[in-house]
């Protein structure tokens, strides 16, 4: 006759142990939940530190009882495999669950339950929670900076136009596809520049002139990062090719350029653009602050771009070069028709990552006095009517930036996965 060991969980006494174990875990969770949400301590009859450790000990015993290998019960097996492989894992599981439960009520009440969003002045914020009224009132400033309210449609239209023009490539006719690269590298930047210049800056076609000092908020982030991206890409390509060149002078000039910009922090580059750059320009030559910043960031990012493109060039098999040469192609023909089309396809994820870094770097332009989102927050924070809402502002900005950057990183990850399988 087979004896059943009641002290050690096994397949034979699975029912008893799994029920008792899950019951104990449930009790420990209930204890923590009631502690966090209802502020009642169910285990107050226990002495001090034991009372706070009680749910952990109880949960650990419960999980230990539930740990039965190959139990035959699908749910139990899955649970054991994922969160309950050994005692150490069980403790970590419980600690994570408990801390999530503990953190929920205060953050919920601060962000939603006790928060205010009605009204349009500081007085509307009476609760102990967040004051989203502040965000509501300042929303347009955060998005458009000091740009006059009645002209915001101009920024919106310009963005929609630029984005629409960017998608032209997808709808091009088959026989025009060969000009696609030409379109994106030369024609598109020019058109985009003209659109942004005439629509957002204004000054002609009956549109009122708005100086760049008034631009700001999130739209400025987009403008700066957009222009830097489309300018730094061709520049980076030139330096990437230069670094792989056989001609020593060109090679070393490219190496110096790339290593110089990669070695200095962006903030000093921006300092340079604001205090040093005007000294290097001809006397009566005035250059707008925004243009100087875009040039500085473009030069800076081009070095990073060049390294990414160089990676793509290097990963092409040698046979591609040899084949192109054996067909009698010269340097430029070989690169334009054989090497670059393949290499650029490979580096799209890397370029997306560079662009991501670029977007994350744009808040730095506050050092030269341009107020994009982070700069506008600093401005709003010191407004005497709205003192004391720094937390709300930074959380709002973080959420916005997080959504943008997360979407972009996921997109670049997908691209990477896609091109990996294609090769």
């Amino acid at each position, binding site marked *: 006759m087979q004896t059943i060991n009641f002290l050690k969980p096994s397949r034979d006494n699975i029912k008893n142990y799994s029920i008792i174990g899950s019951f104990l875990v449930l009790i420990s969770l209930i204890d923590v939940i009631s502690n966090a949400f209802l502020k009642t301590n169910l285990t107050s009859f226990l002495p001090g530190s034991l009372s706070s450790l009680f749910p952990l000990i109880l949960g650990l015993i419960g999980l230990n009882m539930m740990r039965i290998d190959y139990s035959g019960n699908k749910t139990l097996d899955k649970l054991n*495999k*994922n*969160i309950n*492989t050994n005692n150490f*894992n069980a403790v*970590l*599981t419980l600690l*994570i*669950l408990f801390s999530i439960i503990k953190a929920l009520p205060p953050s919920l009440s601060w962000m939603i339950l006790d928060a205010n969003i009605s009204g349009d002045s500081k007085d509307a914020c009476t609760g102990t929670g967040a004051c989203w009224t502040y965000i509501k009132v300042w929303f347009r400033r955060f998005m458009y900076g000091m740009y006059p309210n009645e002209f915001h449609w101009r920024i919106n239209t310009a963005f929609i136009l630029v984005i629409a023009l960017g998608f032209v490539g997808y709808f091009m006719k088959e026989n025009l596809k060969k000009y696609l690269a030409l379109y994106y590298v030369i024609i598109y930047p020019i058109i985009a520049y003209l659109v942004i210049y005439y629509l957002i800056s204004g000054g002609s076609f009956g549109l009122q002139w708005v100086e760049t000092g008034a631009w700001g908020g999130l739209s400025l982030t987009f403008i700066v990062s957009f222009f830097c991206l489309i300018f730094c890409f061709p520049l980076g390509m030139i330096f990437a090719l230069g670094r792989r060149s056989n*001609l*020593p*002078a*060109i090679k070393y*000039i490219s190496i110096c350029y790339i*290593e*110089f910009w*990669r*070695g*200095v*922090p*962006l*903030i*000093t*580059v921006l*300092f*340079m653009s604001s*205090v*040093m750059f*005007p*000294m*290097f*320009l*001809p*006397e009566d030559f005035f250059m707008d602050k925004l243009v100087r910043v875009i040039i500085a960031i473009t030069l800076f990012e081009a070095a990073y771009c060049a390294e990414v493109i160089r990676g793509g060039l290097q990963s092409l098999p040698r046979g591609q070069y040899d084949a192109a040469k054996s067909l009698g192609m010269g340097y430029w023909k070989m690169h334009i028709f054989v090497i670059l089309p393949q290499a650029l396809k490979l580096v799209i994820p890397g370029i997306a990552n560079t662009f991501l870094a670029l*977007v*994350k*770097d*744009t*808040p*730095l332009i*506050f*050092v030269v006095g341009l107020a994009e989102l*982070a700069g506008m*927050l*600093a401005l709003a*924070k010191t407004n005497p009517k709205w003192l004391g809402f*720094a*937390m709300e502002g*930074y*959380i709002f*900005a*973080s959420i916005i*930036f*997080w959504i943008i*950057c*997360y979407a972009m*990183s996921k997109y670049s990850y997908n691209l990477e996965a896609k091109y990996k399988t294609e090769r």
Partner: protein
Amino acid sequence: MNNIIKKFLPQILAILFVVLIFGFLTINAQTNMDNRGIDFGFGFLSQESSFDVQFSLIEYSGSDSYARAFLVGLLNTLLVSFISIIFCTILGVIIGVARLSSNYLIKNSAAWYVEFFRNIPLLLQIFFWYYAALRALPLPEKANAWFGVTYMTVKGYYIPAMVWENLNVFLYCGLAAIISIIVLRNYANNLRDTQGKQIPVLLYSIAILIVLPLLSFLFGGVSLEFELPQLKKLSKISYIYEGGISLPPELIALVLALSLYTSTFVAECVRAGIEGVSKGQKEAAASVGLTPNQVLKLVIMPQALRIIIPPTTNQYLNLTKNSSLAAAIAYPDLVLVFAGTALMQTGKAIEIVSITMLTYLTISLTIAAIMNWYNKKIEIKEK
């Protein structure tokens, strides 16, 4: 002939282009400076700076020179980078290992940690810690003691200072301990290779590391006292802690933001490194008869480190460069002290910005050179 033209013409054109650009810029700068009556030169470095710096590692006052102000800024930059590198490494390794855990909850918490902190601009994180989170701390008189002796207040973190007597004796003892451990290791390795004998090196090393400094306390006349921070009333409503070391909130915010942000990248490097060691290696090592500890120490770690170290050093370099964001919250680092205050006072834009950039460039290139050397050294040499 055709070949020579093909080879030299582009190079000559490129050099000419670079020379022309530099010439154009220099001539412009020359005329601009002549017009404004500024002369070019580094003589200002020895002049009296006459500004104060809030926080510095070396003694500094307004009567010191600009060169010393530069040194103060550089040391502050290195300090914040050093502390952040330590924290981001610890955090990064923990998170990177956690991402490979078999536990669903741990794996996903670590993944969300990485996604969360990586995708928020560093500057926003610094602002958040400095202007929002640290401002919510209690005033000095209301602060609770952490670990009984340290105080986290809105004015900074106060910790006890160590007051040493005969510190040099203690340091010599530490140095002697390290040297004797190295000698012992070499001896043990030699013994193992020639005679096959094993001696517990780790145990002996720990013993040496404890005993030698302890001896310095007993016989070397070394003594250590702690100076605790004491609450002091400045005026009716204003209190401050005196004694001990005070870490300014700028430093804390910067270290927090830098280490949290960079730890996500370090975590990814660690994960990639451990994933990069193929499973066969582990199985092969186990089947040869190595213990799990030996497998980790002799087979997995050397291979994983080869993948982990180069990108991680790159992240350390990025962290050092990112520490220049300190200027945004008025932590007196190189950029704020030198490219900010000193530049405002002297107006020597070209000289100061070049010095600042060259300093960062030197740090970057030095570390890059060391890294290249190291990579060459640990490269798998195939015969």
